[in-house]
């Protein structure tokens, strides 16, 4: 039996809210390797190109990464000669409108949220990225592990400058 089964909805909401805030802080602090730990071994990180995209296999995605590819990204961002990280990109995000969704897999908790994130690099104009997070979570220890983090950017289909760091 999962830990969430015995919790009230209000307690679950409080717990996932704390988890999402903690996750956002790890990303804003560029603590990539701590953030990677949040996922289950099979966990996926997916940002579809289209909101109505049926799958990540037959259609390109802005991000579609398993543990291996997430680790490659984290490593590259910290490489000495990652030219596009000279200087590094920095981000600050706010996560809000956190709501519990309907899980289709028993034991999972689904959380919907909205994020606004500013990104800055060089003296280029700051970029505003925004959209919706959908987290599928499993209880782990005192908190949760991410089975899937899905990001739907509101401008996913528009022309983009490079997206280097995790959203």
């Amino acid at each position, binding site marked *: 039996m999962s830990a969430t089964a015995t919790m009230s909805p209000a307690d679950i909401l409080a717990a996932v809210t704390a988890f999402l805030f903690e996750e956002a802080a790890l990303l804003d602090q560029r603590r990539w390797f701590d953030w990677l730990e949040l996922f289950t071994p099979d966990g996926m990180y997916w*940002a579809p*190109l*289209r909101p109505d*995209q049926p799958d990540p*296999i*037959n*259609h*390109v*995605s*802005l*991000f*579609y990464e398993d543990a*291996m*590819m997430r*680790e*490659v*990204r984290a*490593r*590259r961002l910290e*490489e*000495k*000669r*990652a*030219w*596009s*990280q000279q200087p590094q990109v920095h981000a600050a995000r706010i996560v809000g409108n956190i709501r519990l969704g309907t899980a289709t897999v028993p034991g999972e908790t689904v959380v919907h949220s909205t994020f606004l994130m500013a990104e800055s690099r060089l003296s280029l104009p700051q970029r505003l990225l925004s959209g919706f997070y959908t987290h599928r979570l499993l209880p782990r220890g005192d908190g949760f592990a991410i089975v899937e983090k899905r990001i739907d950017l509101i401008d996913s289909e*528009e*022309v*983009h*400058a*490079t*997206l*280097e760091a995790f959203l």
Partner: protein
Amino acid sequence: MTRQLPAIDTLVEPDRVHKSVYVDPGLFELEMDRIFGRAWIYVGHESQIPNVGDYHQALIGREAVVMVRGDDGKPHVLFNRCPHKGAKLLAQPCGNAGRFLRCPFHGWNFRCDGRLLSVPAREGYEDTRFDLRDPAFSVRRVPRQQSYRGFVFASLAEDGPSLEEFLGGIRLTLDNFCDRAPEGEVEVAGGVFRVWQRSNWKIFFENLNDTSHPMVTHESAVNAARAEYQHRGDGGQMPFQLHIIEGNGEPYDFWGALEMVAYDRGHSYMGAIFTPPTDPVSLGHQAALEAVHGPEKAHEILSVQRHNSIIYPSCAPHTSFQQLRVIRPIAVDRTLVEIYTFRLKGAPEDYFQRSITYANIVNSPSSNVMPDDIEVYARVQEGLATDGGDWVSLHREAGREQGDGNGRYTGGGLSELPMRNQFRAWAEYMGEEA
């Protein structure tokens, strides 16, 4: 405001070009007239508009055009402008306009081939010079359009070489692109990536055949992929995703063993020796080709190895991963690149799915490989704007290329032949007055 432009013939020398070709906004405007106003420019693929009323927007230089499927079943390339007061007719990158195009301003209706169909309250035009049948009141068509195996090109010039003549030897790349499909046809599928570059369009074209940059520019991605492979530690075959990234770290000898082939009008490709595939996905594709053509013909098709062909000045097909990059100059220091993936009709699904994986790894705005490309292009753009020097060097293996006397030139895999070849075409287009 008029400003003196530098004389074209002083800007391009056989082994170097003047920095102003990348940074001078006046030259950019002249390029729009003399290059993009003359050359055959890729518009889109017919498979993007399968049904009547389907449309796809494109740019030909500074001209916004739209490719629409007419009720005659043919694609029509039209200026995206209403002949009444000029409103843009279509705003979405692609979609279906219905059975006719309806202007959102005063409701003039046009057939999908651009001909004016009706105007509301027509009595108001009686006894005026307005004439429903006068082409001046229809959506203007581009002066010339032509398809080659489903790839639609258009030219803003009334006269000039035919599309086939324009393509010359690079035409075989488009043939091979399609011949790799067991059914001999390809279709756009799986979505399009669209990416901004903060740099001049020519910098990207040069990079497409620049074999001396990957090991330097992509060091971070190569190191990360190698470290990840070590970390996974099973010593087995490197997973496809890592392999694609790690391939950028090949040493100079590897790239030097390729062959650079260039043609008149700025086209070129990087050629490789065919090594028969051993992985199941490629073998499945090969088997599907053999089932249709027999082993000999299938081998002949697969042994055409043209990486990053350049169809100057608008697109770059990559035959082995079924993709086409489309390059749209937006401003002297801003370029839009679109990356389309194609499905080979009759090939196994996992072959298409692998090209999707390839695009995700290499062409997504989130690629681990591309940001360092885009960064160095932007640094070139910024560096060239300084007073630190007037010339850009294209000296690598200069003068060593072999011409066949018939518009085909070959050089070593590390040669800057493709760049010199692009600028030879550039100077020809630009030097010719209207």
